[in-house]
């Protein structure tokens, strides 16, 4: 019996599972789709509670200022105003990474970025709340603002956080092998600087929160737009000084996250504090400008690279210096800093690595986790450096990438271990599909083609507060009232994990996906899960679900066996039937030994009642992890490659991306349709960052474009043709063989476009975004020098 319970994902000790699937690998439109296309489904802001009132947050017009006083007496006198809070109501700092916690729901003593919240009001309706904000008098002592990290690191006289000299939030050096020696001995060394830009998630649904504090029971129920309800839960408990078991978080549906909802929003805290103060439910919905002010977008990076090669074009060493702009607070910063470090180790074999990185505080909205965090920035640089080296060696970018690509079983110097990789297949496939080899270097001036690769982690090995508990738990309940119910706290932010979870459960249980009901995203009802980040859900919840489902089968198989009069270990289940693996098909057209799933459940229920089993997942820990190298460590990795084709308008400098061909290794796709959607979305976000997206901050820290009007992102007109392909793959360390597909595919998009522009006009750009102005200037300079 123990055997059946065993779900092994220990490295090098994979249990051999069948790869013949019925539910996994099926194209299933998401189960909540009909409710979404009819407008029936409810997002947070769609909910209304009895006696509910509205909250609004007053934001600072200055990027750096001491708060001398806040006077809200006039606001309180306004008819319909029920309560006001300020930083005094939330003196305890929080943060997603607890040991760097330095954020407050509302500024305490000082504001550090434009738009930081300084007070919040609850009122009978939104108009009254807005009027009340105007009546709050805040006296500021305006301080000089610094928005450039290269400047901030030199200014110890102007500390954004008193306890951080030179505005250094964190710094770290990692050395693997002997990079200095390797570079000195290299046959060819390139040195170059790159800049990656300040962009944001721009999900379409602004954050909202409804807090309902019950003064009679002392319990708080928060409805929030949150990718990481568990971490929000923890931080709420800390800030409100309440035990976690008195707080319940329900996440209705989320309208896109991409990492931006991977931190507790200040609306969560403010609504909770206000609700506790006035004893009524309080809803706060962000305006679009609130979203920008608190956005936690991508860290801009000033990167210096030195890359060495031997005489054959094999990478000998990488020396990577990264100065990262962190904005005003810590957020996910330390994680992103060390992810950029770890991103140097794969998808190419790099025998010697040096990383020297700093994350700097500046007076702009905090930078955080955005799709492909930590990977997008160095990938942008490294892929282009490889292309440049290829030219030196007389190879194509394809050849040099293939030459250096890692394969299954690779262990990096940092101990990052790749159980499975089809990266080379990805390269082959895009090159073939796009006819890259026939086009590279051969297209007329103004037209170009570029190839790039990428990879991303698939799960994470650590909880942010360093605990050994499982990272996810899934419970499956079987009864005859509700059929199969799967409880799991994983948060669907639009990527479709609810459907994928149902598919995985259905696969092992032998039922139809459509018959599995998923109960997600409620800390009181569903089970524990760390949250949606690091592309971890399919992998982590997949294992937990598989384990739970196998336990269910272990209970039902003996019952089925006795009903079929055969041995328990002869039983299998599929398509709603338990059957004997030896006698499923009876002879001469007669039915063999099989019995309907529901009948077995019925018999089981008669004597045992409802059946419920739990599974869990803890990522395996690799031995010998060296200090610092552990961040970015992941159970497995997804890979992808892309070819971009561009058309440069030589008169305007505008770049038109005509086509992107993509091939991804996500292991066994659980739902190919969802994978395709993730790939398309990744390409769209990468395209925006490559060409025009940028949050612009004035030298005094004012945010210049906090609206979807001025923050330009791709529309339907800007999308190129996309040919997304999934390469044949199966990762034996992954549940059902499936791994990440949500963040890997954004990695190659930007460098592929930049390389295509190089192919088109012969100029290699190293700064994002690639605006028409930059391109046109380069073309003019080129003409002038001829």
């Amino acid at each position, binding site marked *: 019996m123990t055997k059946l319970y065993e779900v092994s994902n220990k490295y090098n000790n994979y249990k051999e599972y069948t790869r013949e699937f019925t539910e996994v690998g099926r*194209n299933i*439109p*998401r189960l*909540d*789709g*009909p409710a*979404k*296309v*009819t*407008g*029936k*489904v*409810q*997002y947070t*802001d*769609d909910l*209304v509670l009895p006696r509910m009132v509205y909250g609004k947050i007053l934001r600072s017009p200055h990027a750096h200022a001491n708060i001398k006083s806040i006077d809200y007496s006039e606001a309180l006198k306004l008819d319909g105003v029920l309560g006001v809070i300020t930083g005094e109501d939330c003196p305890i700092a929080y943060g997603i990474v607890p040991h760097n916690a330095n954020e407050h729901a509302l500024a305490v003593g000082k504001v550090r970025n434009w738009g930081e919240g300084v007070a919040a009001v609850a009122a009978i309706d939104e108009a009254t709340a807005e009027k009340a904000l105007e009546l709050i008098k805040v006296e500021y002592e305006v301080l000089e603002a610094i928005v450039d990290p290269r400047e901030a690191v030199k200014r110890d006289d102007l500390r954004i956080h008193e306890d951080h000299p030179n505005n250094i939030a964190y710094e770290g050096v990692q050395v693997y092998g002997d990079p200095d020696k390797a570079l000195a001995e290299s046959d060819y060394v390139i040195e170059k600087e790159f800049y990656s830009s300040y962009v944001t*998630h*721009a*999900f*379409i*649904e*602004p954050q909202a929160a409804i807090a309902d504090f019950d003064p009679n029971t002392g319990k708080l129920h928060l409805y929030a737009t949150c990718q990481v309800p568990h971490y929000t839960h923890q931080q709420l408990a800390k800030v409100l000084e309440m035990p976690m078991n008195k707080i319940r978080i329900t996440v209705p*549906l*989320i*309208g*896109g996250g*991409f990492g931006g909802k991977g931190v507790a929003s200040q609306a969560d805290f403010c609504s909770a504090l206000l609700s506790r103060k006035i004893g009524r439910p309080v809803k706060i919905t962000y*305006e*679009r400008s609130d979203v920008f002010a608190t956005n936690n977008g991508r860290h801009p990076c000033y990167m210096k690279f030195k890359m060495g090669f031997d005489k054959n074009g094999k990478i000998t060493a990488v020396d990577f210096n990264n100065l990262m702009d962190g904005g005003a607070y810590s957020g996910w910063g330390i994680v992103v800093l060390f992810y950029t470090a770890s991103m140097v180790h794969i998808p190419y074999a790099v025998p010697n690595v040096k990383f020297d990185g700093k994350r700097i505080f500046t007076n702009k909205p905090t930078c955080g986790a955005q799709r492909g965090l930590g990977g997008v920035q160095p990938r942008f640089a490294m892929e282009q450096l490889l292309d440049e080296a290829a030219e030196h060696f007389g190879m194509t970018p394809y050849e040099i990438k293939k030459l250096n690509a890692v394969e299954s079983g690779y262990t990096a110097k940092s101990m990052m271990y790749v159980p499975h990789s089809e990266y080379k297949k990805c390269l082959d496939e895009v090159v073939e599909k796009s006819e890259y080899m026939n086009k590279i270097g051969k297209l007329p001036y103004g037209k170009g083609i570029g190839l790039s690769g990428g990879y991303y982690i698939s799960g994470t090995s650590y909880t942010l507060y360093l605990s050994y508990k499982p990272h996810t738990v899934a419970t499956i309940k079987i009864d005859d009232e509700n059929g199969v119910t799967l409880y799991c706290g994983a948060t669907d*932010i*639009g*990527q*479709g994990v609810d459907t994928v979870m149902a598919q995985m459960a259905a696969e092992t249980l032998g039922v139809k996906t459509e018959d599995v009901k998923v109960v997600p995203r409620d800390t009181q009802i569903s089970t524990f899960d760390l949250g949606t980040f690091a592309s971890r859900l399919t992998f982590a919840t997949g294992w937990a679900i598989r384990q739970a489902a196998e336990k269910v089968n272990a209970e039902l198989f003996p019952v089925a066996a006795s009903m079929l009069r055969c041995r328990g270990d002869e039983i299998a289940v599929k398509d709603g039937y338990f059957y004997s693996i030896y006698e499923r098909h009876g002879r001469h057209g007669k039915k063999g030994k099989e019995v309907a799933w529901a009948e077995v459940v019925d018999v089981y229920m008669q004597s045992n009642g409802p059946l419920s089993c739990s599974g869990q997942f803890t990522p395996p820990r690799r031995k010998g992890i060296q200090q610092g190298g552990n961040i970015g460590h992941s159970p497995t990795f997804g890979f992808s490659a892309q070819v971009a084709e561009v058309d440069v308008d030589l008169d305007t400098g505008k770049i038109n991306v005509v086509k992107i061909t993509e091939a991804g290794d996500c292991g066994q796709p659980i739902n190919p*349709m*969802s994978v*395709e*959607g993730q*790939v*398309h*979305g*990744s*390409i*769209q*976000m990468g395209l925006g960052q490559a060409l025009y997206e940028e949050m612009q901050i004035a030298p005094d820290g004012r945010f210049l474009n906090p*609206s*979807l*009007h001025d923050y330009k*992102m*791709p*529309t*339907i*007109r800007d*999308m190129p*043709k*996309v040919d997304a392909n999934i390469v044949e793959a199966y990762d034996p360390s992954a549940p059902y063989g499936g791994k990440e597909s949500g963040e890997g595919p954004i990695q190659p998009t930007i460098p592929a476009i930049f390389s295509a522009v190089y192919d088109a006009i012969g100029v290699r750009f190293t700064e994002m975004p690639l605006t028409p102005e930059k391109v046109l200037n380069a073309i003019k300079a080129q003409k002038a020098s001829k």
Partner: protein
Amino acid sequence: MKKKIVKLDINNHVYEVLVSATDLLVDVIRKQIGLTGTKKGCGQGDCGACTVLVDGEAQLSCLMLAIACEGKKITTIEGIANQETGELHPLQQAFLDHGAVQCGFCTPGMVLSSKALVDNNPTPTEEEIKHALEGNLCRCTGYVLILEAVESYVDSLAKGEV
């Protein structure tokens, strides 16, 4: 502010609502009438999530005053599926079948903008579809599958299948 009772014809039902001169159509639809299928992504006319049909044309309800909509026919996403049977409109079905729905927040607006287009021009070109949808932002899907969904609907319309 002085309020006034206006009659709004939404999805073939006339609602009497009390609105002030500055109340936006999107807020009245969402908060007073409770049809929350209409979404608000920016409140400034930039994202298209709040798209509704007004006399058959796609309009941004965050830029319209409720008071100005008296006597007009408004259709929201809740009015698209068959009102009696609940059966999805073929355009809605096409969005599902083509994986054009991810988080779903832009979806009501996308469906309505597409519907307004095809109702007025049953044989739009790819360019015309893009023109009709360029004011609807979607951050999840990359638009390609949305375009495919609309094209497939146009196709089946031409073949008389729907």
